């Protein structure tokens, strides 16, 4: 459908790196979670992170958001060194993290309010983002009145509303059913095409990682480190048709093979121990 001039196939991180992670390490007391993590994310690039459960993907993302302190190394977002949450970075949470006492409108407005936005700005922007995620008409609904998929749309709108240069996605579609998940993946791609940002997408679904990511980082081991970074050279913009491409299947199998080998090794290590 689209012209082959689509930029997604090029190594987008090569131009301006929005996020730079350097020799990052994190431990919880005696337990070392990951070590020596190094990667960049371009200003208009989606990097997916996959790994076996318990490998510290979510911990890594929380460190990048500044929610958790790291022990070694550095995280840079633009010129800012991340020690705590910084402006311009927004996170979408696995369990939505909506405030049950707030309506959709007020949930979406939350980030803007915390950033000190004026009332007129809030009243102008919030409906725009509610519409963007397809929740128009639900402004006054409370989270408990909505399905999981709608709740995560609201969570996405809340993150988008602060117009971040970096979006951090923590297994955002893991808690919704399979069909909804698929719909939301393509919605996310559509929204990203409209407003490209640097994005880190943590998932345990290989298919999701390959579909969304321009590169896929595979974490391995205990403590985990980057095992492989797979360039996903699929033509963009990605649509449902992308899932049918032979190249998609190839890449999926490649990431799958890498991960499964690791999973098996980890199992053997456990058995020996």
């Amino acid at each position: 459908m689209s012209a082959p001039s689509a930029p997604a196939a090029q190594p987008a991180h090569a131009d301006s790196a929005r996020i730079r992670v350097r020799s990052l390490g994190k431990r919880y007391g005696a337990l070392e979670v990951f070590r020596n993590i190094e990667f960049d994310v371009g200003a208009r690039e989606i990097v997916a992170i996959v790994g076996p459960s318990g490998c510290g993907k979510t911990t890594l993302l929380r460190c990048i958001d500044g929610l958790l302190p790291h022990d070694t190394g550095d995280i840079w977002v633009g010129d800012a060194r991340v020690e705590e949450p910084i402006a311009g970075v927004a996170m979408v949470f696995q369990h939505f993290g909506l405030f049950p006492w707030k309506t959709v409108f007020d949930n979406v407005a939350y980030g803007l309010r915390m950033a000190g936005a004026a009332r007129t700005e809030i009243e102008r922007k919030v409906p725009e983002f509610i519409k963007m995620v397809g929740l128009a008409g639900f402004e006054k609904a409370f989270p408990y009145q909505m399905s999981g998929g709608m709740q995560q749309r609201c969570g996405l709108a809340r993150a988008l509303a602060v117009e971040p240069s970096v979006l951090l996605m923590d297994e955002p579609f893991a808690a919704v059913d399979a069909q909804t998940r698929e719909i939301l993946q393509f919605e996310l791609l559509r929204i990203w095409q409209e407003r490209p940002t640097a994005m880190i997408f943590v998932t345990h679904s290989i298919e999701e990682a390959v579909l969304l990511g321009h590169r896929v980082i595979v974490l391995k081991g205990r403590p985990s480190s980057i095992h492989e970074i797979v360039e996903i050279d699929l033509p963009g913009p990605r649509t449902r048709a992308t899932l049918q491409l032979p190249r998609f299947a190839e890449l999926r199998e490649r990431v799958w093979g890498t991960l499964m080998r690791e999973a098996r090794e980890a199992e053997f290590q456990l058995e020996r121990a």
Partner: protein
Amino acid sequence: MTSSAINAPADAAPEPPPLSDRLRQTVLPRLVTGLILLLMWEIAVRLLAPPFVARPSSVVAIAPKVLTDPKFLAATGSTLLAVAEGLVISLILGTLTGLAIGRSRIAEKALLQHVNFFYAMPMIVILPLFSLWFGYSAATRIATIIFASIFAIVMNVADGARAVPGEYLEVARSFRAQRLRMLFEIVLPSSMPYLLAGVRLAGGRALIGAVVSEFFLSIGGLGYYILYNSRSYHHSEAFVGVLLLAAFGVGFEVLVGWCTRRFMPWYRRGAN
């Protein structure tokens, strides 16, 4: 006939019982018990007690006169106003203290044991001291009401503030909320169900505090009205006051329950 009688319960089982069944099964027994108790009271007083002792028929007979008596209304107003004032003060100070205890380790260490201590202390024993400090006055009544009600709110809000789901705080931190805003815009609303449970408890205790201090201090109010009429052999009048106090207690519970449903539709408990 026999077959339908056997089939009936099996058919009814999966569906909720119809209204007439619920009336028969819960409201009717309650009503019957109440009527029996009233009847026993009426008969016992008529047979055994002197004529000035209150009985259901005499209370009903005197009720319209009492309820329109300006003195009675003034006394009721005075007590309710004092309870409302005391509750508002308890609510504000108690919520602030509870939030501090729930969210700050130092505040918890410094305050929690004392709160438990005062909560457990019977409010009546503090009354003689309060009357020395604040005089035989409305100030002592307010102080007693606050003392009676505040610790229930503190303890409940502290529980609620401790139980705030970590994900809410994480979201707030991620969006760079300042600490105070996090406290009042995340911790407080998240603790609202606990706060209302505390208020429910505090309302009853405040009412008791008001009445007891009026007994002790002989200052105008519904409690004093009851005491005065009991002592001057106007038992039926006194009893109208007693019933009204009970109605206020129940009414307050209903009001808090209604507020919970009206203003916190997101807070749903399993049943009811």
